[in-house]
């Protein structure tokens, strides 16, 4: 090795402004890059959590009876018979709230009567076709039978519970850790008991952004109508959803004068809306991070170019006294490496500090160190890449330059 770091360092220290600026850029860029990437990856992970639901092939019908003539149960039966009779429909269920939509109901459940109730669990009132409609997998026990579906709650017995329920595996694990939940009893706030007859997995409930979005139970009961609206979930064969939505909207809009159809929408609408904030954050962070890397790259490139152009004569002299092209390239790359490394060193501290501050301030999880390692490698590579072209240009300076006056 014909070059050691000492002369490069002393040259750098003599002319530090540019180097300090680039190092500062790299430091901030690293801090932003690492934290932004970390936040984006968390969002991606969240969006990719399995719902267990055949989201792409499901649509939702929201309706409401609004006259005194409206009779809930016959109307539900008629609508379901129509929906299930349509060619292309795999299954349909009434339900009290739309999964993944951000709206829903929950109540507390415990495993012993009178136990302290701490958590509320998301529930859906459904009938025996719910599993087929959602496309969710039954991993233990059995589905509801048709004769187990209880009538809707009314204004005179609104506190009634159900004799059987199906739970998600996550909820089963929460209520009965490391045990089979089948046949076990759970109790509502009035100590009314229900038996767990089945377990599905996975199944995401009403609030996809919640940490425990998968604590869900299904109650075999027609949804009550005194809350205003009544929803149906319809699953179709692939590719037939949109056509069926139009047919269903046209028919149900007219089939019962005592009831209106609020809307017919694909389930993807609700899922997209629930994740919209995450998606926007993702896009924005990714764009700004990309721009940041580009700007930093330009900064490194500009400084290297400037250094080369102001040292043409010096390079020529070194070439004249025997330095090879390789040595010149190496000189500039090492110089750049020193600057980048010092920036990265400061950047690591800054990144960790920012990560820690964010985790305190905004209750984000603590920064994962893998991201820091990845960020360091990325910026180092980018720094060297950006200095490559100017270093090559420096190597092209002919030794004869040394003998010329400027």
């Amino acid at each position, binding site marked *: 090795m014909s070059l050691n770091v000492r002369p490069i360092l002393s040259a750098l220290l003599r002319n530090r*402004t540019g180097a300090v600026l680039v190092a500062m850029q790299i430091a901030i*860029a690293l801090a932003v890059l690492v934290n932004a990437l970390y*936040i984006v990856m968390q969002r991606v992970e969240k969006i990719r959590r399995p719902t267990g639901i055949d989201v792409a092939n499901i649509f939702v019908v929201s309706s409401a009876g*609004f*006259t005194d003539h409206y009779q809930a149960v016959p109307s539900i039966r008629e609508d379901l018979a129509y929906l299930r009779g349509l060619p292309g429909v795999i299954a349909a269920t009434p339900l009290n709230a739309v999964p993944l939509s951000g709206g829903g109901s929950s109540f507390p459940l415990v495993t012993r009567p009178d136990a302290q109730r701490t958590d509320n669990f998301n529930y859906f009132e459904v009938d025996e076709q719910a599993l087929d409609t959602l496309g969710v997998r039954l991993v233990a026990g059995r589905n509801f039978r048709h004769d187990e579906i209880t009538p809707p709650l009314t*204004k005179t017995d*609104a506190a009634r519970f159900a004799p059987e329920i199906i739970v998600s595996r996550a909820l089963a694990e929460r209520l009965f850790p490391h045990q089979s939940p089948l046949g076990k009893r759970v109790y509502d706030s009035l100590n009314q008991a229900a038996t767990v007859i089945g377990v599905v997995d996975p199944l995401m409930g009403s609030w996809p952004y919640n940490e425990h979005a998968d604590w869900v139970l299904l109650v075999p009961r027609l949804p009550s109508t005194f809350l205003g609206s009544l929803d149906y979930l319809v699953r179709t064969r692939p590719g037939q959803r949109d056509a069926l939505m139009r047919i269903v909207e046209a028919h149900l809009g007219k089939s019962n004068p005592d009831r*209106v159809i609020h809307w017919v929408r694909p389930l993807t609408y609700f899922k997209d809306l629930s994740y919209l904030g995450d998606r926007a954050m993702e896009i924005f962070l990714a764009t700004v991070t990309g721009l940041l890397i580009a700007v930093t790259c330009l900064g490194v490139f500009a400084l290297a170019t400037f250094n080369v152009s102001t040292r043409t004569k010096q390079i020529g002299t070194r070439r004249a006294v025997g330095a090879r092209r390789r040595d010149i390239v190496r000189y500039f790359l090492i110089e750049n490496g020193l600057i980048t490394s010092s920036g990265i060193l400061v950047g690591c501290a800054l990144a960790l500090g920012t990560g820690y501050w964010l985790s305190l301030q905004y209750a984000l999880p603590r920064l994962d160190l893998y991201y820091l390692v990845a960020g360091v490698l990325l910026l180092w590579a980018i720094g060297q890449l950006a200095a490559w072209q100017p270093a090559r240009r420096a190597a092209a300076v002919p030794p004869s330059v040394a003998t010329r006056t400027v």
Partner: protein
Amino acid sequence: MLGYYTRLALKSFRRNPGLTALMVIAIALGIAVCVMTLTVYHAMSGNPIWWKNDRLYAVTMDNWDPNTPYRAQPKLPPPEMTYKDTQSLLASNIPERKVVMYSTDGVISGAGSAAAQRVGTRLTTADFFSMFEVPFLYGNGWSAPADSPPQPVIVLSREENDKLFGGANSVGRTLRWNDHEFRVIGVLDDWFPRPRYYDLNGGNFDPPDGAYIPFRWGLDLELLNNEDTDCWRPEKIDSFKDFVASDCIWLQMWVELPDAATRVRMQSFIDGYWAQQRNAGRFPRPLNNRLTNVGQWLRDREVVDNDNRVLVGLAFAFLAVCLINTVGLLLAKFLNGAAITGVRRALGASRRQIFIQHLIEVGALSVLGALLGLALAALGLAAVHHLYAAAHLGHRGGYQELTHLDYVGVVWAVLLALAATLAAGLYPAWRVGRLPPAVYLKSQ
């Protein structure tokens, strides 16, 4: 002198058009990202009724579970009230105005030839319109006597009136709400407070309800809340009567108190009621009844989300990188042009003049950057708006309402351009002024 320096700056730009463009783009990107995030932040953190900030108060009482506080903020009482507490507090004559309300889904039919359709409806006491200064296009709200017994009167939003009556003055017309006959007595003008401070239980930036009817209809027709209802006490709630008598929270209550003295009186009235109820076995938690003004209410309810704060921080970090980058480029550029500066110095320009000349060059860069930045920000905000509007299937509401580039963006762009000039230009301009002219003259 200013004109001359500006001409010099333009000449200098022409000497290195690529480098100049790079610097302008760097500044523009930095400013654009900042203006975007600040525009959204500003819209999100607005107080739509700031002029009444010392008069309007949300009323809350902590009636919650003795063992677990309400949700994530243990120090705050639940944001909504029980029916019985609102009714007891409504009896007070201390507030100048008082409102108890909630919202529900209704169906309006029989309005001209319009088909039956769902209308988000607010059930409220009469003071709603005057308290929140809701503008009317036609007619008026109802007055207190229409509250009890409830009169069949309805106020429509402008949008709803457009849908039902084609925008005509519908005051005096009748329609059916949930199959009961109501008479239109007022139509609101455009009104879209963002955030929807008076009821933050639905979407914070969703449009107001389409119709308004007297509160007591909700009881007579046994209508539940379509937003948040929360219960903690294990009570057997079989009927609407049970529900109304329960410790479930589902109502919003606001009072208007003209001065500090009435506020103190109202607070002690509430606390007195609390003590009396506590003796009867309710309110198991420590005393925590609040009158919260709108500004504090928006903070308590965390209307500005953390994501947006993080983004503003990120935007400024990005701007910092862009500016540091520009400092480096400027330094290189000015030092490259040192020979010319040397000549100007030799011909008698003072250091001060050289400094000012270069600072003006940076200022011109920043102005160009700010203009381009504003254009980029407008584009970026339009893209965000499009993203949100598409996901909402064209309905209003949500964050798409926060993406309008307004004077705030322009003010920020100007401020940032100024800051950029000072941050990026001061050092290079000073540095080039310190160069000894003789060296550059000699080597020529």
